[in-house]
């Protein structure tokens, strides 16, 4: 009996060891560190299968905030980054972690808030003025607080509005350190304002009492870019397959798939790979 128990145990260990071995070499895949907005909006659900069907390369997406996604790539845990905070992306380039940044698409941010509109900013065209009013009235505001692209945009909007966040922040300003969807859930539950990218907002299914209060200001522009992690800096990067993904994204075919992604009749992302200033 003891002997049998031992053999069983030994066999189990062998099976377990087999499972622990890295995945089969013939599976071609790349790892893309991207943002919660591209995942929560559902874009990847149409984009990635189209790419895999064309090339046979599977794309594994880690959806994080932009800051975290870039850090993941800096540690060498991703082949491609697909993010939206130009300043942080340029820093990534300058540090040598990538050699070229490709603009892919854009949409815009919107300020959403409760229908009761406690700050009275609904319909304002100037987002800086709206942010100033929110701070002056200490209306509840939920911040991502996670160094994501949206969080970066939000912080620069406070600056543009002339609000010194450190000086005026109080209970009305709530940093939750989570993704866009979780932030919208929180804003809904607290009847608070927040800044969201339009794609996640449109796709979001738990809008409740929230609605768009400010949109259409040029300052709300939201550009997405993609970069291959520099193989000279991170030798494990799958450069060929990663570049194939980027080339496809900015090709007419990839751009057409991005443009075709709609929820209802609303287009969520607008391809602009050809724009050198984006």
């Amino acid at each position, binding site marked *: 009996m003891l002997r049998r128990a031992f053999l069983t145990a030994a066999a189990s260990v062998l099976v*377990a060891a087999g*499972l622990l071995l890295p995945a089969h070499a013939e599976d071609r895949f790349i790892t893309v560190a991207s943002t919660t907005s591209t995942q929560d909006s559902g874009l990847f659900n149409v984009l990635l299968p189209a790419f895999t069907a064309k090339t046979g390369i599977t794309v594994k997406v880690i959806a994080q905030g932009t800051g975290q996604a870039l850090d993941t790539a800096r540690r060498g*845990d991703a082949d491609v980054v697909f993010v939206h905070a130009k300043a942080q992306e340029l820093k990534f380039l300058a540090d040598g972690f990538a050699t070229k940044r490709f603009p892919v698409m854009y949409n815009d941010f919107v300020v959403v808030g409760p229908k009761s509109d406690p700050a009275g900013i609904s319909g304002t065209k100037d987002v800086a003025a709206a942010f100033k009013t929110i701070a002056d009235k200490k209306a509840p505001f939920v911040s991502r607080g996670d160094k994501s692209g949206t969080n970066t945009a939000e912080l620069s909007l406070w600056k543009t509005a002339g609000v010194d966040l450190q000086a005026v922040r109080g209970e009305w300003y709530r940093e939750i350190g989570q993704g866009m969807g979780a932030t*919208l*859930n929180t804003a809904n539950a607290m009847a608070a304002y927040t800044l969201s990218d339009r794609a996640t907002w449109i796709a979001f*299914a738990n809008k409740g009492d929230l609605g768009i209060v400010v949109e259409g200001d040029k300052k709300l522009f939201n550009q997405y870019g993609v970069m291959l992690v520099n193989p000279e800096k991170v030798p*494990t990067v799958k450069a060929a397959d990663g570049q194939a993904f980027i080339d496809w994204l900015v090709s007419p075919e990839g751009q057409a798939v991005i443009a075709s992604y709609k929820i209802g009749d609303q287009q969520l992302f607008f391809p602009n790979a050809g724009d050198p200033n984006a």
Partner: protein
Amino acid sequence: MTAVTCAGIVGLPIGAALALARFPGRTAIIVIVNTLMGFPPVVAGLAIFLLLSRSGPLGGFGLLFTPQAMMIAQFVLVLPIIVALSRQTIEDLWTEYRDHLTSLGANRLRSIPTLLWDGRFSLVTTMLAGLGRASAEVGAILIVGGNIAGFTRTMTTSIALETSKGDLALAMALGIVLMSLTLAINGLAYGISRVGARFTGRA
């Protein structure tokens, strides 16, 4: 599941040994193991993340963001539970059977397999507690697995994702499925141990 099995293979003998062996520092180890039962999964996840990251000491294996990484995390989380609970069970059994086993000439070490076999029905519960921890876990596996669709996405991380998307109905539905699965597994295990106990003539 694999993680729990491995943790069982490693954990049960350690638990038994810890119950029977007497050595300096034993109490300290028991306290540490008991503490580790409450190891915050996020901390375990972060530690394993740093180990497995390409820039970490074990980065060369390329295990981060794979199911293997998730198994390692769950193994680390489940092991202390199995060690601590099995130690308790075996220690109680030892108190009960000590004289009997000693009279048969078995020393403490030799008694371990017998006691493990004898306590197998209560040890099933121990394993279930481990399985419960593994299947309910989200913090650690989200960090080391990355929640990649169709690859490292589990029931719990899907629930977290659907909640993020605001699809609360789907998230809740997944939660109910997960609960039902757990209920079924527990019911089955309870039934098996009851039947087994009847067969061997012990209630």
